[in-house]
């Protein structure tokens, strides 16, 4: 059946290409969660016809392919081919890092330029030529972006640019993100977001050799929260980039929760603690950056949401602002407090579970539960390591883990099945 032909024979309603793309994404999600059948998904989509008026319209993908992307063999193919691209790409980086003396520099440059061109050319052909293999094409485009990173590091190696210079990683991000947006390519977006995080950490490590772990954590917390807020922003309106919301939020949640987790240890805030984050104190710069960036991003999200067609309270944007403010205060002149960050951490973990449940996003439920469990285990070690005999400590810990995992699995299963049957 033609997807854009109405089942009832009526003329389909013309909507913008970006709106159609958003609708297709939503239908894909509903179908993946079992809310509607394949037949229903086709019938709903057939009521609308996309117009090609958008300046950056992403090519519509047939709804069955879109749905298959997230479930079934389509997802398997996408995952396997992306894994292949990642292995090949990192293999190339290591190959050039070996700096084989038998290959003169000009031949290495020629080789990497050819590899980049070939990967992108093949990716373009497979993704855009009708009847070809769009998923493998997507992976080859990702491979081209990894080769591009290898090219940057090769050039820096040839000219002996300082090994601690983080500019190469930033150039990688700058090169990858425009292509991610023009193609609405989630793999490229993920690569761009990860390389940006790497650059951020590199700059922090380089710029504060005598610096503080707290600054480092605050910057990563800010980056993670900013990603969550940006993901929220992407999902607000129908656009080709609406599916980016999940990528931003998934990476952002993991990064922010990891940073928060380290802040929950008392040692982070003790001058002579084993983490000794506070030994040189926080410069205050990082939390100021965090607050400014997050206030801007979350505030914009909040405004957009309140002025939208159906204004609702933007819980996620508010949560991002609250966590940013608490973290800002906690890492500044008020002095850090493990108790404060424990409260924030466990509230955030449960909040992520709740948001995942309400938004029917299983990945968020899983992330929230994982960090909640890790937090509980960490506190168990903190409080009982010195208080109990070792044998009792481990046996009690094992019992808690087994009982806890039973409870976790039960509640997780109940939530996921509730999401699916919603």
């Amino acid at each position: 059946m033609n997807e854009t032909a109405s089942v009832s024979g009526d003329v389909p309603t013309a909507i913008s290409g970006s709106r159609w793309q958003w609708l297709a994404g939503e239908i894909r999600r509903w179908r993946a969660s079992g809310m509607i059948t394949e037949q229903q998904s086709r019938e709903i989509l057939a009521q609308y016809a996309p117009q090609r008026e958008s300046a950056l319209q992403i090519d519509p993908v047939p709804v069955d392919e879109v749905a298959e992307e997230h479930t079934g063999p389509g997802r398997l193919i996408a995952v396997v081919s992306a894994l292949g691209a990642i292995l090949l790409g990192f293999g190339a980086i290591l190959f050039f890092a070996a700096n084989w003396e038998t290959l003169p520099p000009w031949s290495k440059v020629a080789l990497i330029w050819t590899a980049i061109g070939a990967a992108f050319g093949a990716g373009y052909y497979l993704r855009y030529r009708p009847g070809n293999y769009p998923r493998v094409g997507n992976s080859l485009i990702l491979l081209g972006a990894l080769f591009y990173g290898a090219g940057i590091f090769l050039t820096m190696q040839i000219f002996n640019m300082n090994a601690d210079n983080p500019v190469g990683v930033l150039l990688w991000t700058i090169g990858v993100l425009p292509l991610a947006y023009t193609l609405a390519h989630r793999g490229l977006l993920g690569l761009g977001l990860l390389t940006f995080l790497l650059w951020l950490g590199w700059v922090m490590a380089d710029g504060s050799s005598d610096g503080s772990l707290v600054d480092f954590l605050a910057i990563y917390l800010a980056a993670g929260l900013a990603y969550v807020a940006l993901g929220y922003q992407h999902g607000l309106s129908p656009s080709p980039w609406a599916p980016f919301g999940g990528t931003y939020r998934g990476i952002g949640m993991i990064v922010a929760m990891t940073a928060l987790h380290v802040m929950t240890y008392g040692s982070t805030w003790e001058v002579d603690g084993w983490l000794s984050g506070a030994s040189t104190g926080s410069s205050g710069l990082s939390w100021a950056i965090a607050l400014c960036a997050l206030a801007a991003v979350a505030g914009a999200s909040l405004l957009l949401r309140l002025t939208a067609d159906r204004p609702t309270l933007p819980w996620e944007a508010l949560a991002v602002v609250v966590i940013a403010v608490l973290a800002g205060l906690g890492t500044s002149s008020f002095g850090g407090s493990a108790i404060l960050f424990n409260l924030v951490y466990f509230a955030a973990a449960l909040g992520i579970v709740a948001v995942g449940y309400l938004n029917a996003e299983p990945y968020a439920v899983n992330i929230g539960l994982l960090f909640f469990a890790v937090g509980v285990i960490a506190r168990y070690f903190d409080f009982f390591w010195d208080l109990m005999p070792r044998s009792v400590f481990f046996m009690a810990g094992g019992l808690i883990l087994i009982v806890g995992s039973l409870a976790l699995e039960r509640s997780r299963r109940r939530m996921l099945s509730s999401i699916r049957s919603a």
Partner: protein
Amino acid sequence: MQIDVKWRFWLPVGLMFLVLAGLGLSKQRTVLTGDTIMLRTVPVDPRSLFRGDYVVLRYEISSLDLGELAFGSRLGTFAAGDTVYVVLEPDGTGVYDAVTVARRAPDLAYGQATLRGTVQSTFGAAPQQTLAVEYGIESYFVPEGTGREIERARGDSLRVEVAVDGGGRGVVRQVLVDGEPFVPGGEAPTPHRVDAPTPQAPAQAYPYPYP
């Protein structure tokens, strides 16, 4: 307005190639047009995740005692992150030593060269301040497993040939062991004092890809 998929794809890809070419050509310009200076060095051998084995090169000019340099004590107190221009002059063996420093690109006398660096850390305060400076020429990448060969040759026999452009940007051309270009996997060099080649006659076999 509809932008064709060809443009949406190939324009950002073209941007990537431009970034790569810009990165290489900016350095190649310094290599081709810059003056050649020779510096004494002491290497150590670590590894970069993305770029493989390299030796960290430490120079005499990596640590500057402002009190011992002409006009150095008049420049006020430096802080980490400040830019500093080091004016260099060749000694009798052709190796360049720091003669003075400046906060802005200085006018150079005949035979002088300048390197632009960034202050990494400081000790003391003006006029007797000591600066740890990084010039962007502190890494030399070598084939995997050969870093120790250079390290074994530490001492007075090691020189680094650096191309320096008018703006003080430096690019390491090659490392010389006993006056000869370092050949990985070659005969293990023995440390002893040699005179480095004069800057007027630098080695010309630069292994760079952009002609």
